[in-house]
């Protein structure tokens, strides 16, 4: 750019500079508009969660509530006004979600690391065949498995249990594929050197491969945790006991009774407080681990 400026006379220069400034004004305005579009729902959620019923029912939109109604949040836990369906507790939802997330993620990491190691480093008959079968299953929509899994869980009598929520998600073809790619990039020379030192294959996995693939493994941990936090369909199919709800289906069930009965008019503020309580923990995690999450998503290309 600086080179081309040298060949312009002052008049052309002025036109060029004005054009450039105009372009950045347009560009920044566009980006600010999009940012507003993204932020407004969060703003609306927070503001509404702190309003009184009178304020939400007002004809005019109130941008900031006069006083902050923290009572809407305590209502979520105490249910003093009977806003929430009886028997649903936000604490239980948090506890269940954390248990399921930790179990699912731990299991996923163990199975995925082991199978990615086998596909990347071991020689065995049928390796390519098994791997291509796995890749083919990635083409098949998960909705197909849900039907049989629902039947399996039912016939095992596992409704409303942690194993029903955890086991179907304890491994992942996609993460195996993703981690195998990382493992494959480790140069063979390292392996040979380790062999010379008398390291076994599993020793090599633990001492060399896992530390090198740390970033990918952390990405898988985070994405798997986010996945459980946002899981809705499967939990809502296999649990109907209020003590087994996870955050997503619990949140919907919490207000369902009231909404069906009289519409959300009188409980919008508490409902938004509930949404905030489900959204904020994940946002905090995101802010803390922003770099890992964003680079992980762009590298793995996991669909949102």
């Amino acid at each position, binding site marked *: *750019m600086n080179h081309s400026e040298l060949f312009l006379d002052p008049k052309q220069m002025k036109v060029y500079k004005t054009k450039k400034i105009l*372009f*950045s004004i347009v560009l920044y305005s566009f*980006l600010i508009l*999009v*940012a507003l579009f993204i*932020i407004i729902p969060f703003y*609306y*959620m927070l503001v509404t969660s702190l309003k009184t019923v009178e304020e*939400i*029912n007002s004809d*005019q*939109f109130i941008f900031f509530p006069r006083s902050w109604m923290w009572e809407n949040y305590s209502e979520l836990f105490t249910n003093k006004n009977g806003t929430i369906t009886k028997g649903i507790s936000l604490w239980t939802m948090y506890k269940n979600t954390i248990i399921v997330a930790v179990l699912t993620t731990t299991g996923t990491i163990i*199975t995925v690391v*082991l*199978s990615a190691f*086998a596909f990347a480093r*071991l020689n*065995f008959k049928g390796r390519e065949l*098994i791997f291509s079968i*796995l890749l083919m*299953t990635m*083409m098949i*929509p998960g*909705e*197909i*498995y849900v*039907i*049989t*899994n*629902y*039947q*399996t869980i039912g016939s095992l009598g596992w409704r409303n249990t942690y194993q029903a929520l955890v086991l179907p998600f304890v491994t992942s*073809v996609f993460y195996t594929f993703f981690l195998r790619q990382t493992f494959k990039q480790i140069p*063979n020379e390292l392996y040979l050197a380790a062999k010379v030192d008398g390291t076994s*294959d599993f020793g090599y996995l633990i001492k060399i491969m896992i530390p090198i693939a740390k970033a990918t493994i952390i990405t898988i941990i985070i994405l798997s945790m*986010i996945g459980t936090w*946002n899981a*809705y*369909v499967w939990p809502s199919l296999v649990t109907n006991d209020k003590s087994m709800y996870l955050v*997503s289906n619990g*949140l*919907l069930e919490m207000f*369902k009774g009231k*909404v069906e009965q009289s*519409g959300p*008019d009188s409980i*919008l503020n508490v*409902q938004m407080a*509930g*949404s905030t309580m489900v959204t904020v923990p994940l*946002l905090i995690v995101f802010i803390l681990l*922003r770099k890992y999450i*964003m680079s992980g*998503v*762009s*590298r793995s290309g*996991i*669909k*949102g």
Partner: protein
Amino acid sequence: MLEYKKDGWKAAISLAPAMILLAVFTFWPILNAFRMAFMNDYSMSSGKWDGIGIRNFIYIFKDPTFWTALKNTCIMVFISVPITIILGLFIAVGLNSIKKLQSTFQTIFFLPYVTNTIALGLVFGAMFHQYDGFINQLFNKNISWIGAGASYTNAMIVLMIYTVWNGLAFKIIVFLSGLQSIDKQYYQAAQIDATPRGRVFRRITVPLLSPMILYITITSLIGAFKAYSSVISIFGTGKYGPGSDPKLLITIVGYVYEKLWASGVPLGEAAAGSLILFAIILAITLVQLQVGKKRVHY
């Protein structure tokens, strides 16, 4: 790799946990879906079926709700996916050409990716509430967007806005990483020739980004065909529409899951429905890959 090595045992041990789980929860379910779909009138509560045939498919094709679901899903897919991709592409190109505030914008645009679909669906439902919603209050209107008596178009608009809002983050981040990997020399060459921005975009950015565009198009189409949580959350009751018309915006996936809650649990029909979804997704992927062969520059 070291082809002389024979690691049969080690491989069996390492693969066993994943393979056992996949066998039970993935491979068998896939085979079983094909089996159940052709077992006439197979249901979970009776456990019986009436011979092998295509009766489940006939039921589905005769069911008006299925056609509603198909229509709703197609409308949603063919409007929301192009909007999201084009918007996402422009945003990524814009982000890539600025220096100031780039990472701030990037973080903001990424937020929807890490938010709970149900929680934010409830927020969109509240924003478009007829009496208390921010949209009607701000514009002093009294439109029933998603409440009782909401028109099809209004409800669909809300769903589209939510879908675009929800889907942008992923597209932006994939496009942005694609843009950052394009060799700067192309742009420098264009600058020397004083090529206008529009032409740079059409002749350099889009062709070099075409593998990403193809990838995003395929995954977005597949994702949009599987729409479900976004629909039920905006209405706030687990239904696909307002109380007056609970199936207004039912989708194909919704149609399949409804079978699992229906009396008797007609698994055969559910399986048939899921195979139809699979067929649609497969067809789209194949068409896209075919188009990709001609139009994508690798």
